[in-house]
């Protein structure tokens, strides 16, 4: 009778985490910044049809990096959960915190029980009634939830990008300066990114109901040009 080799649980978890991290590191990063106008989410994404940033509900947006089919499936589940909750109760009862916790459940469950962890990092953002009340929930591949304060960076190169955002983000930025900081941090010192390389969306604080809107390339260029 053959005996399976003993593998320490620490080793199993480490291998899975390494696998997920490698998958995520292959993709490009994404930055979300809370600003005066709302929450601006900026992803490096040359495709204009396969989206990384999308709408979940009235005041909630979703962003993902890593394996597209995996985070897109999570996005659709989130839209379903939010719409069902809004239908059964009321639109005001749908909030980012509950959704983030449910995502954490799914990610944690898959990480510990399935063969392969999800190679994704996701962001659930909710725009508040006034500046300083926005919520940014950053979720890792193993279900860890991080409640970010002013900005969130997702993706492989997150540490370097985070340092660059921290260095240049002032207090209470407006939309144009937040976007410039985000794009500068994504590009780094050696590259410049233009509107066509980016996918930008805003959770607009001033909107009455559905706050999510995409910012088109021309408007992105105009915002980046102002100084």
């Amino acid at each position, binding site marked *: 009778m053959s005996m399976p080799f003993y593998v320490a649980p620490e080793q199993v978890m480490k291998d899975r985490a390494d696998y997920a991290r490698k998958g995520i590191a292959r993709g490009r990063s994404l930055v979300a910044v809370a600003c005066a106008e709302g929450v601006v989410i900026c992803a490096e994404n040359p495709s204009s049809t396969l989206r990384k940033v999308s709408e*979940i509900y009235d005041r909630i947006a979703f962003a993902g990096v890593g394996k597209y089919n995996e985070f897109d499936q999570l996005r659709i589940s989130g839209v379903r959960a939010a719409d069902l909750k809004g239908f059964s109760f009321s639109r005001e009862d749908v909030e980012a915190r509950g959704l983030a916790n449910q995502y954490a459940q799914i990610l944690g469950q898959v990480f510990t029980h399935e063969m392969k962890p999800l190679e994704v990092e996701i962001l659930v953002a909710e725009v508040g009634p006034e500046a300083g009340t926005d919520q940014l929930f950053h979720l890792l591949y193993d279900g860890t939830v991080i409640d970010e304060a002013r900005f969130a960076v997702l993706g492989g190169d997150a540490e370097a990008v985070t340092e660059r955002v921290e260095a240049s983000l002032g207090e209470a930025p407006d939309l144009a300066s937040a976007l410039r900081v985000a794009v500068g941090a994504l590009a780094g010192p050696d590259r410049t990114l233009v509107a066509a390389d980016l996918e930008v969306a805003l959770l607009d604080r001033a909107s009455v109901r559905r706050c999510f809107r995409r910012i088109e390339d021309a408007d992105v260029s105009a915002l980046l040009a102002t100084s």
Partner: protein
Amino acid sequence: MQIPVFSVADDPGPDFASLLRRQGLSAAVPDGPVSAAGAVPHGTTVVAIRYADGVVMAGDRRATSGNLISHRSIEKVFPADRWSGVAIAGAAGPAMEMVKLFQLQLEHYEKVEGQPLSLEGKANQLSQMVRNHLPAAMQGLAVVPLFAGFDTRRRAGRLFQYDVTGGRYEENDYATSGSGGLHAATVVKLGFGRDTSADATVDLAFQALVTAADEDSATGGPDPTRGIWPVMATIDADGFTRLDDSDLAARYGRLYPGASA
């Protein structure tokens, strides 16, 4: 409420109604005639008229249960999404539920698929919802909506009327529904012109509703004492815009100078 997770074969796609069925949240159909449970509020007259750049939708504010007035100020004209509106006549409860589901269905599709349905797609979707409602209609809870919108691909206003079986009929000029619909249609027919302005078309719809209220006891007319005015909206390239009550009050004063309070 948990995040719903489906296997690939079982996935409901962008269809919200099918998602509700899978979650066991759809409403049950009554077994016997609803009259056994007492009179149910019914909504009455709604009108939709095409004009040069879009569509005007209008509805009175009365709901009746048998010979009694159950509400003086219910609304029967709703935005379905940014570019379209839906107006309802028939049993008020199921009609409101249908509108709520229809609005959600359009929004859900747009979010899941990443782009909105075409106007034709929206009209067909409503047709299916009316068709699915047929068993309840047979029990006395008929809902007969009107649907109108601005077709952003054809750059023109379009309107559709339905029957209880889900039959969908696109109209070129105007459509009415509900108990006072016949009288309203006559007024619209006499005053209709293809190239009328939005303003003149709103006047025409207003007069149609006043006439319907004059002839049909289930249709409520404008009520200046209580400040209750019909719900009227235009749908054009700028989307669905509901008219202010102050605008309607001024219109009433202008159209019926003798009657104004």
